[in-house]
């Protein structure tokens, strides 16, 4: 971002006049020089993912008894082998595409991720995962801090959030991340839209007004920043809205978001970090086995991610792509009275992409209740964490984003065993 300071003496207001670097040009230069853009797609499974249903320890003798009515039958899990503690594991039967990606060695599953004294609150838990800071989860997002650390000029489309609201993960101090739920609807309308000269004059006026950011009024300046970022990105986003692909994406919000991400990558508009989310993981009731809320969740996840994987693979962009999932907590081991599960602790994260070293990382919980079982907590009701989620973030920061995880995460969370990327 190019920033020049001007003082508006007449109005008594200090203001920044902001112009963004010309991104198409930068992109083309970068491409001509053979530079690749590495993309990170953060996938938030909202509500607290029941990882014991996603990655099933089907031979654990307590799995069936503690999960009566919701246990995935051994015969239908998609086996992925045994982990280092010799526990046999299988993916949920609806994750057919992810199973294929696993077999291609491009899906890594990191078991029992969490942190000490894990919060069971959706809101506090989400903030902790978003900030990577259990002590101060009201701060900036871990990826927002990454964007802040990039050298100027930072392009206005360096981040792309596919939801309407800016998630805390992407909250940055001085890099506004646009929210683009639909590339097609991302336009500037005018009451005189049939009169090109008038509509253009109006858009020009809006753009000029938004460029005079009143820095001494921070509340107002924030809205100016949103308007400015919107108006400066409309034309490039329109090019993504026109993206066509032979790959059929499911007509779910996640499917359409993944389609937009692929479009943005293919168009090479310069975005490094994408945020996508899919809701409904707060499965307090009727999780189901062959049908039910969890089956629907897995179908939505599988179909969208598989379509995306195929699309970027066809476009030759797989090696530039890393998808990383998280959820605010796992769920209670025992089924509740509503054939669902309540809020728990540790969960599974997964990473997929062309450079991912696929496989099973960490160890599964042993579901046998007992005071001496170190893999459980809360009177053996919940799964205890083994890998601090910040170690997973650290690996991504250091080995994918090219950042410095110790500075970004305020501590050394590097874990040499986490070689998934």
């Amino acid at each position: 971002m190019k920033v020049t300071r001007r003082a508006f003496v007449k109005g008594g207001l200090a203001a920044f006049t902001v112009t963004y670097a010309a991104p198409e040009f930068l992109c083309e230069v970068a491409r001509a020089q053979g530079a690749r853009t590495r993309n990170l797609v953060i996938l938030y499974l909202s509500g607290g993912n029941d990882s014991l249903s996603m990655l099933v320890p089907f031979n654990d003798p307590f799995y069936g008894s503690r999960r009566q009515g919701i246990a995935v039958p051994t015969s239908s899990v998609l086996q992925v082998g045994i982990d280092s503690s010799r526990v046999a594991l299988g993916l949920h039967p609806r994750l057919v595409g992810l199973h294929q990606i696993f077999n291609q060695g491009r899906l890594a599953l990191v078991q029992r991720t969490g942190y000490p004294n894990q919060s069971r609150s959706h809101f506090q838990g989400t903030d902790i995962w978003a900030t990577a800071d259990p002590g101060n989860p009201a701060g900036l997002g871990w990826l927002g801090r990454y964007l802040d650390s990039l050298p100027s000029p930072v392009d206005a489309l360096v981040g792309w959030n596919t939801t309407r609201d800016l998630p805390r993960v992407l909250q940055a101090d001085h890099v506004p991340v646009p929210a683009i739920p639909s590339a097609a609807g991302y336009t500037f309308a005018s009451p005189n839209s049939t009169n090109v000269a008038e509509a253009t004059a109006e858009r020009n006026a809006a753009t000029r007004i938004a460029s005079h950011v009143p820095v001494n009024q921070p509340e107002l300046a924030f809205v100016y920043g949103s308007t400015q970022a919107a108006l400066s990105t409309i034309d490039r986003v329109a090019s993504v809205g026109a993206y066509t692909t032979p790959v059929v994406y499911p007509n779910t919000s996640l499917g359409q978001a993944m389609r937009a991400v692929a479009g943005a990558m293919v168009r090479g508009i310069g975005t490094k970090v994408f945020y996508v989310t899919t809701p409904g993981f707060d499965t307090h009731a009727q999780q189901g086995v062959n049908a039910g809320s969890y089956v629907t969740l897995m179908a939505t996840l599988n179909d969208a991610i598989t379509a995306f994987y195929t699309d970027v693979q066809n476009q030759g962009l797989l090696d530039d792509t890393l998808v990383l999932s998280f959820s605010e907590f796992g769920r209670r081991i025992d089924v509740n009275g509503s054939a669902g599960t309540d809020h728990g602790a540790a969960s599974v994260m997964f990473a997929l992409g062309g450079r991912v070293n696929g496989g099973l990382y960490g160890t599964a919980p042993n579901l046998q209740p007992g005071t001496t079982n170190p893999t459980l907590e809360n009177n053996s009701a919940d799964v205890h964490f083994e890998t601090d989620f910040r170690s997973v973030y650290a690996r991504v920061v250091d080995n994918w984003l090219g950042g410095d995880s110790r500075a970004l995460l305020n501590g050394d969370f590097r874990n040499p065993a986490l070689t998934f990327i």
Partner: protein
Amino acid sequence: MPYAFDEQIGHLLRRVGFGARPDELETFRKLSFNGMIERVLEYERLPDDVDTHIGQPGYVGNTPSAAGGFQPNTNIGDARQRWLFRMLHTNRPLQEKMTLFWHNHFATAFSKIAALGTVGQVLATRYMAAKPTEDPGRVRGQLEMLRENALGNFKDILYNISTDTAMLYWLDGYLNTAAKPQENFGREIMELFTMGVGNYTEPDVYAAAKVFSGWNLRAAGSGAGLHAEFGYNAGQHDTSAKTFSFAVYPDGRKTIPARSNLDGMQDGRDLIAGLAAHPNTARYLATKLYRFFVSEAGAVSESFVQRVSNAYLRSAGDMKTVMREVLRSSEFWDDRSYFTRYSWPAEYVVKCLKDLGWRGFSVGGSTLTSLSGMGQELYNPPDVAGWDLGKAWFSTGSMLTRMNFASGLTANQRNRLFDDAWDAANHRARPFARTPEALVTYVLERVQTPPMSSTVYTELTGYLRATGEWTASETQLKTKLPGLAHLVTGSAEYQLV
């Protein structure tokens, strides 16, 4: 012409309502300071007749969301329109504003309830929005309950919400049994509805789930009136004693005693009373009220929180007493509090209508689509914590949607904007429209917006001249005035209330 206290009146009506219609402004100009506050608070002295005007000429229109006409008790799109209509046309602005506050506080989403196999869209709309006088089974939707109790006693509201059909579905209370207590409601009643996170423990959550075991649903009514309603299911109540980390009773006892199944419903009444009376609840609400009514800028005033908490505790949770304290506070009236709140999408949309006009416009159809794009579907908050407020409303996508809504509205109101700047009888522009400077000044005075900098003012007059010399012709006015109104209501400044 502006009056001496228009700034104060504008501030009051933006905060306790959704902006100022011209007739509201006239009414409030005639009142004393105390008269204004009492008119706002004692709204029950005014008739609750706003719904009778739906569909009448002179009021904003609606667009039935489905075939068969306007059905706000059974179609959620029409329910949304009815509420927007009330926000715009009510003479009891604080009633609608507090209802919106409670809707966000006890955030319950239509979509989850409607998706339940045994419920569906029609019943879910009834549980959320039906007026008992218009429902064949006398169902009182959650919003109607909140609206009736908007300035009622907090403990009553909490009891009503705990036995509310939509809430029992939303947080799975209908499935809470002795054998398998359901923690969803037990957690949120402490975390989000009363004391706030950090003031309860995980064992408190397990205990609260047991307290509300058996608070389920049962079938009621018949035929078209058939519906589910709260029923205490004694056989499914956990009769053991429940101990909390905080005082449940006024004498400091933390344990709800073991009770028989038949008496077990008292457990929940005790916990509700204990939570409602807890000083942390008073502080939690006072803080939220500060952010909602006073300011989102800077830190929350500790002195305000103490005074409002005290008013809450002294009055045992009487929300009218609490709101009187809020509206009489120096913080509320400090002119540094003006325009320090980020408008919610519903506030923005209704304020645009009050400022620019509503005749010939509909609060259905594309207005509802716009609200969704701005991030606020009424009756459908994203989760139990409600909407992300403040800055979170202002992503690029939602800001564009706001600007594009204003574009649609200004195009729609092209011939009516500001009492028609074109004087058709005399074939000339009215005096305020004869120069770009006069017109911009006039428009900025007419709408509820913070002062604009000279830079913005210059850009706006520049826009009026951008495509040709200013002649104040009819054609030019009817082209440029919508464009100007769009730039103003789509501006960053206008988003603040």
